């Protein structure tokens, strides 16, 4: 055996907090899965729209544009927190990670409160008609995703704050930001579909 040539990799870094990390790739694929799910719901929205003459059904008040549009501000701003956290993770700055994660969490909480207020102001349910079904499905699934990521971010914050900030946690912070960008990014078309589409292609056909 001693005759074999060798490729010595001991000089390579023992971890890498970047888009070369397997966890980053895993996270991107998870986003692809969630993205194809939500794209399918967008297709469903327009399929159902084409099947009826009046959209939404008579008696349904369209959700107000103001609330969800205002809620975009904290949502988009929260990406700054994610960005700061992931940059801090790359530079191994614990303070920076805490700041970024905290900023992200705070703004995300404001967004969730605004969404909860809007949620309670709707005058139709998922059982009202097909419009209600698809509207609530999109709203519920996205809220669920956001809530799940907010909880995970909170857990990460606790982990980092309690002194665990080795490479594995720092990669976690980095990919958590990737997921958050995705959840914010995918909301823009979803927001367009459920709030603007019924105004543009709604009413009677």
């Amino acid at each position, binding site marked *: 055996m001693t005759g074999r040539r*060798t*490729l010595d990799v001991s000089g*390579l870094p*023992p971890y890498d907090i970047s888009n070369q990390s397997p966890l980053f790739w895993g996270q991107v694929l998870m986003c692809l899965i969630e993205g194809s799910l939500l794209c399918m719901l967008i297709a469903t929205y327009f*399929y159902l729209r084409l099947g009826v003459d009046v959209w939404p059904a008579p008696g349904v008040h369209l959700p107000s544009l103001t609330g969800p549009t205002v809620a975009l501000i904290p949502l988009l701003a929260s990406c700054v927190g994610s960005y700061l956290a992931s940059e801090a993770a790359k530079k191994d700055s614990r303070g920076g990670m805490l700041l970024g994660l905290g900023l992200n969490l705070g703004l995300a909480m404001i967004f969730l409160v605004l969404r909860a207020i809007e949620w309670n102001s709707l005058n139709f349910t998922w059982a009202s008609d097909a419009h209600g079904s*698809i509207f609530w499905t999109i709203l519920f699934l996205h809220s669920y995703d956001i809530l799940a990521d907010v909880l995970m971010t909170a*857990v990460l914050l606790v982990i980092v704050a309690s002194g*665990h900030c080795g490479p594995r946690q720092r990669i976690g912070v980095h990919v958590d930001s990737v997921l958050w960008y995705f959840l914010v990014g995918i909301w823009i078309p979803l927001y367009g579909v459920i709030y603007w589409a019924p105004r543009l292609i709604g009413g009677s056909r």
Partner: protein
Amino acid sequence: MTPVASQPHVYADLDVLRRTWSSRPGLLGWLSEINHKAIGRRYILTAFIFLLLGGIEALLMRLQLAKPENTFLAAARYNQIFTLHGTTMMFLFAVPVMEGMGIYLVPLMVGTRNVAFPRLNAFGYWMYLAGGLFIYGCAFFGMIPDAGWFAYPPLSGPQFSPGKGVDVWAQMITFTEVSALCVAVELIVTILKMRAPGMSLNRMPTFCWSMLVQSFMIIFAMPAVMIASTVFLLNDRTLGTHFVNPAEGGDPLLYQHVFWFFGHPEVYIIFLPALGIVSSILETHTRRQIFGYPALVLSLVGNGFIAFGLWVHHMFATGLPQIGEAYFTAASMMIAITSGVQIFCWLATLWTGRLRPTAAVHFVFGFIFIFVMGGMTGVMLASIPLDLQTHDTFFVVAHFHYVLIGGALFPLFGGFHYWFPKFTGRLIDETLGKLSFWILFVGFNLTFFPMHWLGIVGMTRRVYTYVPGLGWEHANLLATIGAFVILSGGLVFIVNVLRSRRSGPRAGSDPWDASTLEWETTSPPPPYNFPNLPVVPTRTPLWTPSAERAIVTGLREDRREILITSVLDAQPHHRSVQPRPSIWPMLTALGFSVGLAGSIFAFYWYYVASVLGMVGLIGWFWPERPLEVKP
């Protein structure tokens, strides 16, 4: 990085490696298992148990149809049995068994120590197992689905399918799809980021290519079925949404569109790994590089794309606009091009190679014969006028059994014979293997060939009986006899596996003189797969003289360190440490399972699933000691 001349002391310390990569002992260790070979074996074994269950259901159906006006099964029971048969074979056998082969073989073939996300891998298996136990467990409480394996509304809707059977079916889909998605993610990352140095994409084994394409198909197809089964069907049934209720603006056809947007790629999700298996067997057993490697790989990728443009050919009888249907006819026929390219590549390989006719090769020949026949009826069915005549008849049943059994089961059995020495360390008996092949081959054609004719003369599928005097008696009896011939072939296979596993001759690391990396390590492979990770200089590394092949040194052995390489050229990029075994993936799967199972009764169980799942995930991700991964 370029390999350099060696120093003797760099070889791995096998004792340390074994200690680092071994699983924990005892029951707790068994539940915490995260080694890809153990999880792969569990997938394969569990799937074969479901194959037996699905097979028993098939035999019950054939017994009922053996003679006209038979009273062996009542109509309602027959509906339940064909639903369970289809559901079991598609969701609990065919996809998981291919995933199991991929999980076991891909890390060995690309030359690494484990899959990219070992804990996710374990979680996926437990979800799959829970889904299978859920649907069969509910059967004991009379909650048996009976609306067919694709559960079309309005038949499957709240009005015509009261009871919980269809709900169980719909939620079982979620379990198996979550499992398939987990496997897809980890296989893609394993293939793209963990290949041995030097294994650029154009040196990757065809089986890995087929698993890569299949995994991407899972990622784009599986979300659709979760929408169809859970969002549309289950929510309409339990929450009162109106997705498929035309009275409130919904549309039952929407369900069909979304279901088949998944359902057609699903066939290729099952079939693509089989193509990879066939290429692997042929390359080894003709002792030449597979003919037309670039064409084969491009055809696999092409199959993956075209498969998403075919779904409406399942819906030709629904009255969709004909101009749209014509597009799907053309697309359906196009798949014959990519499939044909592969068939011709294999024929050329056979023609120019020196063939060794082992049992595995027998199964490959069976595959080519049966699959080409199924492919030809497929081209026929792509034509709308013919499809309208034979829609929902036994002609379709014959077609998809030729494609699925011929296209997936025969290659799988061939692959099982081929890799059996690697799995177990022992050779499988060739004579019994060939015997089981011939019995299965004859039995298969005896069962399903008459169904072509039955369908053409008008026997519809899913009927529990028929009246005498239609001339269907002989063909049906023949099919029933054939089903029992298949059973005896299966029994020979099982006997062969059990016997060879116990007392077959020792195989050694490479009994076939094969070309790919899984044959470099011992059989069965040690927990760490390779003492030193290999460096790959050619597409057939084991046929390259070992003096020209280098090995990787410098990976730490006292922790689970792996090598991450670049996507296209597999240049070493960094080292990475994998997590240790953990019970949390199993507990997380248990938490989700309890909640999902409850959700068919009340919505709040989704919250239970979320809370338990969240607790599980926190345990899973909580940092291990030692706190820091030091360089």
